[in-house]
């Protein structure tokens, strides 16, 4: 299933200490981790910001307020230091807390794959003493070295930037060829570790931290929306699937094996691009173009344009998926999420992706908040499709807070 990168000499690498980043301070503020049960979620996309306030109710989470800020031909991702944006967000937060006066300042920020550098590597290590049991410390040391090596490899490709580690997961480990999720206590001569890491541009990270200080909240973590979505899904241990997140200007793609994100990337193309193309080419207005994309037109030329464009869009997705070099066979279960996922012609998507190497006949399904078993929408309903990642980010954040408390 995976192509291996064999590095026998990893064990001889010097111990590299990953430096911690001082957060940029906009104003003096106490950093208090408040392990409360309420959490703010801020999802940043190019033309839209989604803010949600969630509370924990037993094993479920509920939404107790949500706001959206949209602006055409604007880039929120690059506008976090603009005073008007900050004021607008502060006002939205004030609106949320007016109805539900929470004392919590916990915040998780979700960003698109565009601002993340994801990297997967598999390393095989020859252990000096094969008869000794593998300890947690041994694994932690190896992981630290592997991550430092990943960072160097990423920086070798991208000159003149500095990056920080955002999160990392062990996808799987093998001891003498035997796959296991828990190698501690096992004995063996070779240990293979496969790791997925997310890095973020350090300047952008500084900007996000300054931004959260400016809006007066405590940043718990930053995560890519698809990473957090996968983490939030329950009962997905040992499940393999592809995640396609369709938004207005970006399509994020993730490949998940055994419940862990293995590969993540994005395409700078989304539903708005399809819309604008049809409008420009055929001189339609927005609602006519939406109908055309849904196939609700009898004009043969428009239908032909639509099909050609979707062909192109899915070709872009397919090229990105092929770039996952370490993946020889793709999981056939395709889950589609995002604000514009409802407009997906699933059969057309499958037809276009069928040239890729799937394990079995691919099957696509569109998800919304109804599919999230941990979400209780009886208190306040949210837009089902566009807020699905927002809800997942809340779940992810609450999981982190629970772990910190314990």
């Amino acid at each position, binding site marked *: 299933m995976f192509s291996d990168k064999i590095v026998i000499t990893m064990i001889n690498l010097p111990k590299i200490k990953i430096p911690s980043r001082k957060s940029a301070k906009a*104003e003096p503020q106490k950093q208090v981790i408040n392990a409360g049960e309420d959490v703010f979620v801020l999802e940043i996309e190019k033309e839209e910001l989604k803010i949600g306030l969630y509370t924990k109710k037993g094993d479920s989470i509920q939404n107790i307020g949500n706001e959206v800020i949209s602006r055409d031909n604007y880039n929120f991702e690059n506008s976090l230091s603009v005073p008007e944006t900050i004021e607008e967000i502060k006002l939205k937060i004030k609106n949320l807390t007016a109805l539900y006066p929470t004392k919590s300042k916990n915040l998780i920020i979700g960003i698109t794959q565009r601002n993340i550098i994801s990297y997967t590597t598999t390393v095989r290590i020859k252990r000096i003493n094969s008869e000794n049991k593998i300890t947690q410390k041994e694994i932690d040391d190896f992981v630290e070295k592997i991550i430092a090596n990943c960072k160097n490899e990423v920086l070798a490709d991208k000159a003149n930037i500095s990056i920080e580690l955002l999160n990392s997961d062990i996808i799987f480990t093998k001891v003498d060829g035997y796959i296991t999720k828990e190698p501690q206590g096992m004995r063996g001569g070779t240990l293979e570790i496969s790791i997925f890491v997310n890095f973020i541009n350090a300047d952008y990270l500084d900007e996000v931290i*300054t931004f959260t200080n400016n809006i007066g909240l405590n940043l718990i973590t930053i995560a890519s929306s698809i990473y957090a979505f996968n983490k939030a899904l329950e009962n997905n241990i040992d499940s393999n699937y592809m995640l396609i997140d369709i938004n207005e200007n970006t399509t994020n793609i993730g490949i998940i094996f055994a419940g862990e994100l293995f590969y993540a990337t994005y395409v700078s193309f989304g539903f708005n691009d399809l819309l604008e*193309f049809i409008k420009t080419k055929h001189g339609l207005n927005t609602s006519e173009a939406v109908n055309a994309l849904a196939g609700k037109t009898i004009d043969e030329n428009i239908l032909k344009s639509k099909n050609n464009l979707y062909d*192109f869009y899915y070709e*872009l997705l397919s090229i990105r998926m092929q770039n996952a070099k370490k993946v020889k066979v793709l999981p056939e279960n395709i889950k589609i999420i995002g604000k514009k996922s409802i407009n997906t012609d699933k059969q057309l998507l499958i037809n276009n992706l069928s040239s890729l190497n799937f394990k079995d006949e691919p099957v696509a399904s569109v998800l919304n908040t109804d599919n999230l078993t941990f979400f209780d929408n009886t208190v306040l309903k949210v837009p089902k499709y566009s807020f699905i990642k927002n809800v997942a980010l809340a779940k992810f954040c609450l999981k982190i807070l629970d772990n910190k408390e314990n």
Partner: protein
Amino acid sequence: MAKIIKLNLNTNLGKILGQIEMTPESDIVLEVSKEVEDSGIIENIKLYASRIQKTITIKNTDSFGKIGFVSGEDVSTNPITIINVTPKPKFKFSFKKPNIAPDLFSKTAKVFTGNKLPFLIIPAVLSIFLGIFLYLLYYQFHKANVFIKIESQVFTASKNVFVQAVKEENNDLAVNGKTVTKTLTEKAEGVPSGEKEIGENATGAIKIFNKTEKETTIKLGTEVTIKNGNSDLIFVTEKEVKIPAKTTQEIEDEGEIKKADVFGSAIINIIATNFGETYNLNKSSIDEKDISVKNLKSSEFAYEMESNTKGGTSKKVTAVIQKDIDQLVEDLEKRLQKKLAEALKNEVSSTEKVLEGGVNITYSLPVVNAKVGDEVEKLEVSLTGNADTLSFNKQELKDTIVATIIKDLPSEYTANEDNFEIFETVKSVDLNPTTKKVSSLTLAVKVENKIVAKSNTDKIKEDLEGISFKEATDYLSKIDNISDIKIIQSPNIPFLVKNMPKNKNNIKVEIQVVK
């Protein structure tokens, strides 16, 4: 000829693909900045173009792409003047002989001689005058006013500027900072939310019998334990008491004189070690074996309740808890933060500026009218905040950053130096390690200005000479960011051909910049 398409990071990709598909040209030039090139959308565009058999050439405009310049705006490397339109050949009005064959001319001349000559001279003279009139009309009187509206573009740039108490000499981006301080004290009141129990301790007395031959002293504060049901209630003695030793006395018993032991005894007052009704005991319910005194052996001493223990009471009262104090302190800190920031702003003149994000506040220990556990009706806390920051001269900041930014402006553009808008955000605050006061501020400063491409009106006039209005309009519409064109001809004679004056000096060009 290639089609030029300009794009920036905010351009919709689908729109660009639509434009590429719609354009008849098969060669397309994309004018982009490095930012756009690095964003990954170019590959998508090239892929699409290859599907429809068109070729894409990328023109990197990064010679203008210095830090902060808004990428993707009209930044052609060619001078921003007008794209040449080959004007029509100028019509030279001259009295050239008509191209008639000589014999025909001579025959014509004959026609003009003789009696018919006067009638033919008039039209000829009229023609001459008409020609002169037309000459004057086209060359002298024919004028045109060309009004052009050009939209300015937003130029933005960001730089870090350092406000320093001691300005660095060789730092072009450092400005003088003046220390501003303010101290304020605020008070807050609250009602305690805690609860505690208080009461009176029960008192009473016991009698101790000394069975030994030695006098025993019970010290003040000795523990007396009285068992009541399942509880051991602890009392202590209220003063030091000596208990005499036993004595032997002779007594008469049935006619005989016998010797008997008489135990020494003393009454000791006791007080409960805790308040509450539990310690109120009825002596009739307490046995000798229920009472014990610390360090006294039960074989050598005996006890009994001399009186009931009474007076023990308890009740719940409101008391101060730590959370009450912490809440008031937190409220005071928030209030002080706001007030100190405002006060600091009022400390400086209108030419100076203080930024709230650059204020450093230290708080004194709060002064509280009660401590934890105290029973008070009202809790009062006062807190003093000492704030300091660096103010800066607004003009100095503006001049400093504009001087740097101006160097990044492309030479083909002009900016209105009075119209720079400045936005400052505090990025970091540095404190002097000794004085703990603000020694420098790092500001992220963003500037905006509306810039306009420089226009060469003389060249425009030269190129417009003698061409038709339609050609003139097409020519002018190629000026970058043009939003409106108006050509007003004078004299406004209905039959006059809609052409531009032959004489460029009769063309007036007015350019208005639209914001």
